[in-house]
């Protein structure tokens, strides 16, 4: 008798739980924006006004490489918004993952620098874009000024045998292989099979000198601070972080050019929370949000409104000109790479020792 009562109670409880779950889960999913972004880009300070209007209104997942993000989305992860970089837009589009974003609904769209607004791959026609640019920055070598004395301003530092085992580089197709292509005298964005082989040779030459291929910038920063690494390919956020900590580092200005990249918001084709997504993009394009991006990470905002809020001395300290055109005169802009997949496969093989 007791057994039966218990069983009934259990059944009842199980039924209740599943009922509650079925009521609650869709409600939660419908109310919350899902946003898939670079790790580090999840800070609440970047979308304060959105969080005021929709407290706890966004679910954020992070990635450390946008090629990984691409395969995850392709395999069935469906956020409302994602944050890849410009060089990947054509690829995401070809796979039919995106829907155009209406610029009329983006309040601050006019404050975005024309150099980013006019990028060819983001034009969807009819006042619409595939990506709303939000951030840009540079990739170069961050080195310890006390351990590497007056290095020649060249990417060649990452091939310097003197520093064998004390160098690290970024494990992403749009970074290390692009630099290897520049060093091999090959166009990184469109290469023949023979060119690809030249890049592979350059990468093979580098592998024995490296301590790590990584996208884990926290580890790289710690290793630079401890002196385990003397030089590493990083983004400018690492330079900003380590300088704040008082580590003697400098961001190299290679004569072949730093890499400049730009990233932004894309809306996934089957996004469920379109209004929330527009609110979110609008909130992130406010001057205040961009100011946080500049002062916290040393990255550039795509919006001139943000630069207007940052004092000139601060920008000088961050070595960030208020106009991205000034940067782009001396850097290599990371555009779409036609042989991205071939390059990725080759890079994986070289990393494994092939």
């Amino acid at each position: 008798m007791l057994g039966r009562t218990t069983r009934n109670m259990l059944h009842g409880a199980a039924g209740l739980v599943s009922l509650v779950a079925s009521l609650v889960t869709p409600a939660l999913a419908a109310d919350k924006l899902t946003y898939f972004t670079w790790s580090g880009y999840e800070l609440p300070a970047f979308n304060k006004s959105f969080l005021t209007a929709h407290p706890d209104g966004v679910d954020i997942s992070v990635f450390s490489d946008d090629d990984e993000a691409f395969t995850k989305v392709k395999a069935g992860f469906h956020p409302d918004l994602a944050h890849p970089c410009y060089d990947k837009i054509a690829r995401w589009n070809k796979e039919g993952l995106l829907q155009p974003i209406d610029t009329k609904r983006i309040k601050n769209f006019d404050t975005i620098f024309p150099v980013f607004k006019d990028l060819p791959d983001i034009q969807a026609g009819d006042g619409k874009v595939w990506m709303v640019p939000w951030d840009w920055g540079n990739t170069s070598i961050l080195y310890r000024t006390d351990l590497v004395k007056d290095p020649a301003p060249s990417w060649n530092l990452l091939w310097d045998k003197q520093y064998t085992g004390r160098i690290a580089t970024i494990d992403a197709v749009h970074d290390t292989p692009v630099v290897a292509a520049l060093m091999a005298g090959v166009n990184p964005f469109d290469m023949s099979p023979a060119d690809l082989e030249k890049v592979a040779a350059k990468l093979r030459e580098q592998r024995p000198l490296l301590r790590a291929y990584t996208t884990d910038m926290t580890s790289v920063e710690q290793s630079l601070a401890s002196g385990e690494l003397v030089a590493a390919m990083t983004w400018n956020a690492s330079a900003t972080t380590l300088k704040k900590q008082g580590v003697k580092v400098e961001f190299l200005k290679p004569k072949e050019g730093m890499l400049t990249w730009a990233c932004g918001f894309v809306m996934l084709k089957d996004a469920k929370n379109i209004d929330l997504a527009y609110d979110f993009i609008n909130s992130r394009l406010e001057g205040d949000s961009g100011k946080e991006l500049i002062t916290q990470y040393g990255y550039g905002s795509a919006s001139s409104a943000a630069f207007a809020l940052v004092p000139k001395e601060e920008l000088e300290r961050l070595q960030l000109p208020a106009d991205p055109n000034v940067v782009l005169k001396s850097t290599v802009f990371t555009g779409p790479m036609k042989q991205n997949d071939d390059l990725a496969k080759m890079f994986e093989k070289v990393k494994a020792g092939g």
Partner: protein
Amino acid sequence: MSVSAETDHSIPAASDRRRRLFQFGMSAPGALATSVLVLFALGIVLFLSFRTNDGSLLGSGFTVGNFASALSDPLYATVILRSLTIAGLVTLATVVTAYPVAYYLAFHAGKHRGLLLFIVTLPFWTSYLLRVFAWKVVLAYNGVLNSALLNTGITSEPILAFLNTPAAVVVTLAHAYAAFAILPIYVALENVPKSLIEAAEDLGARPFSIFRRIILPISMPGVLGAGLVVFVPTVGDYVTPALVGGPSSTLIGSMIQAQFGKANDWPFGAALSVIVMLVILAVVVAARFADKHFGSRT
């Protein structure tokens, strides 16, 4: 006679049916999990490995090209061999260090046995990643080990060779799998009949002979089980080499993961997985054969 047989039969028939129903009910969840989660998943991997990569989720057409390019490129053989070597070293290190612990637990722990077993399993209450990062703290350039060596004046410069090397992968994995080796060996040692040991002692055998001729052979199934439990998952591991390995310890798991991630070639990744599964199967079969050959009872 026939009548009595009939009546005799009717009662077991009912309980037989009930027993069969019970057995069916008990094995249904397992069968369901095996067929859906294991066999179906394996089937997809096998299916995918014969597809051509066209960028879509399941590829198109049928080809053996994935296997051809994996087998013709010596790189994959090298990396598989490297994985087997590292996994072999991990297994050896784990079993050799686990055996004395299990031996002590089984024969000398006395009333503290429960407490000691608890302590052995204690690290497993924390996340695997946490344990890997603990090793990073120990082995790092400015880590515990290097600081100790510097402060005692044994070295004057921090040693770079501790972290981001294959050795770091072996140490980290050996520690991570320690309990998986200790427990089966302990159970095997528990089952060694004490009477055999006493008899051997009475006949004048020395402790080492007892160990070599009685304890070790009887505990061999536990040792082999432990070896298998450690070896199979470590061959395909990719998290540990990514965190503590450095470029020269890329294992086959990392390569497979890259095909499903960055390189965006799922069919090729599936083909590599199938090859690795076959290699592991071959190693396990060879180990069992050798084991039979040496007269173990497994």
